[in-house]
């Protein structure tokens, strides 16, 4: 009886959130899924009547595999770089005893989050673009600023700017939750600092690192504004293709089909990464 009361109480607590998720998140996605199976009537707005698989069949063209791959490839790489760069920053912010340094690092990371992304992207364009003061950077790395390849480099820079502060802040929590006495114990037994980091800190941080990676990946692959501003119309993410269909051509069914494919791909990747997290987590692997 008591457990039933607790269950009802929990249900009551969950109800508002569940309703919001159902109506605000699931309902629009379900509607989009339905829309993706309607035909598009050229010259009109939105979808026509009837059902078709054509919107999906069109996306089987090899060119679209490239756009999906491009979106995920850049996302995978930038998320990895963000974790590689963010982890040491987070570790330092979590472990340093110098209050001034910690405040400065948090100030920088949080400040970047609050600064408009648009401003940061245009700053990158003005600085590294073909007429910017650091345009020579492209030539230095073998990708001239005016080339199509440099548009990819600029998009990568923009995405890194977008996700790095978030990744670092997430990882601060991860490192703060690792008991420093474990590291001290390893050090007292004679392990050098690099070995402590690799054999004690890193394994304990794996779940946090993978969570941060997944969040960064989600931010990268769903980014619209970064490729829009820095991609020069040459680097197109799946989000840009969707925008053209919904906004410029008013071909909602085709835009919805791209959205559903991205949704399915993201779900597969998230599932795979959750399995990986579980396999690599020291707690899970010992239980």
């Amino acid at each position, binding site marked *: 009886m008591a457990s039933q009361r607790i269950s009802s109480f929990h249900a009551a607590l969950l109800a508002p959130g569940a309703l919001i998720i159902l109506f605000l998140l699931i309902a629009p996605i379900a509607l989009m899924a339905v829309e993706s199976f309607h035909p598009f009537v050229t010259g009109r707005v939105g979808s026509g009547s009837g059902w078709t698989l054509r919107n999906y069949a069109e996306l089987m063209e090899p060119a679209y595999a490239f756009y999906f791959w491009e979106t995920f490839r850049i996302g995978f790489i930038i998320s990895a770089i963000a974790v590689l760069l963010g982890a040491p920053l987070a570790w330092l912010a979590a472990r340093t005893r110098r209050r001034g340094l910690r405040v400065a690092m948090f100030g920088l990371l949080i400040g970047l989050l609050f600064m408009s992304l648009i401003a940061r992207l245009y700053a990158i364009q003005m600085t590294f673009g*073909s007429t910017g003061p650091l345009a020579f950077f492209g030539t230095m790395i073998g990708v001239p600023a*005016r080339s199509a390849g440099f548009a990819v480099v600029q998009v990568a820079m923009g995405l890194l700017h977008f996700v790095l502060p978030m990744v670092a802040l997430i990882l601060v929590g991860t490192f703060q939750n690792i008991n420093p006495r474990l590291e001290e114990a390893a050090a007292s037994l004679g392990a050098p600092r690099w070995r402590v980091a690799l054999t004690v800190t890193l394994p304990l941080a794996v779940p946090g690192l993978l969570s941060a990676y997944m969040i960064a990946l989600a931010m990268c692959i769903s980014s619209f504004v970064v490729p829009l501003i820095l991609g020069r119309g040459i680097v197109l993410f799946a989000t840009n293709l969707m925008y053209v269909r919904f906004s410029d051509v008013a071909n909602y069914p085709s835009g919805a089909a791209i959205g559903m494919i991205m949704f399915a791909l993201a779900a597969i990747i998230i599932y795979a990464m959750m399995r990986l997290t579980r396999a690599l987590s020291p707690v899970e692997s010992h239980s």
Partner: protein
Amino acid sequence: MMRGLSRRDLLKVSAASGLAPALGLGNVAPAQAAEQLLVVMWGAAWIEVSRKIVDAYVAKTGDKVAWELHAGGAMAIVAKIKPAWPRVGYNLVSGWDPVFRAMIKEDWVVPVTLDEMPALKDIPPVFFQKNDKGQLMTVPLSTAGAFWGYRTDLVDKPIESIEQLLEPRFKGKLCVPFPVNLTGLLMLTLAMQRGGNERNIEPGWQFLKELAERGQIGRVINNNSEFINAMSSGETSVAFFNIGAWTQVRKQFPVRMLSRLKDNKGFLFNEGFAVIKQDDPKKVEAAKRLANHFATPAINEQYNWPLGEGPTNPKSKASPDIADVFYAPDELAQYAYIADFDYMSTQVDAWAKRWEQEIAPLIRKS
């Protein structure tokens, strides 16, 4: 039909609750017969000049005008209205011929008459978009066009034909619109260069492939702001785009417009307002009143000069700055072309997909 909270309702509620000053509405007397209008306008010079015109208009009539800016190309407004229809708050939407055609097909636009909008009597009938019944459906304010052009300070030798754009000196220097932009006029100009037209667009794709393969395309733009940024920064030096955006670049940099090419054309079209259907006839009346104001000779001139576009009212004067893109009547046949936007608007979806499948990968590889 469900009716949203009107401004008048809001004023009543806020006055009763003492919220009006907090909402910034306290300076509007509820007894005023004035109407609140929501007008969709382009950014940059368009909104600047429109605000100036409307400030004086508001002081005179008491009508209030709120603005919303086009996001992306003007066609985006169609996609924005569709899911919200018929509960859209827009009273006037600025646009151009293909956008108006799409809106007329969806039956969102109110016809206008010369009796209720006397300024339209002066405007040549050919400038209006009409519905199947022959009713006037738009308020033409500007004669505009899309042209090739280049910054003379960045290009060493003059361009006399767009075939020259294949030369190595233009590698990465071309700025072109995505093919849905300008309803595919880029495809048409390239097709016409190689003997094609709207219905024979294939030569245009071949030309575009050559440009893409050689790495000539440095930037693909979607709106005026992107064009102005690309051309003003010097990132690109040659482009095909609308004269309004070109004018903003021409204010700062030396530009030669290729409006009189021997083997190609300049593309003409009209911009203006469409009056959007509303339940409240007073709103429609007020929207027509404002649109008529923009079409009067003095205001039509004031509106078009900073935009670098031609007034549609023959009683207005065109800016001398646009003499090079304005055609005398005897030049029209030789240099100007009015595209079949009705047909092209049925093709842009296929053209956009073909661009994604064939052209964009070539640009990336180049």
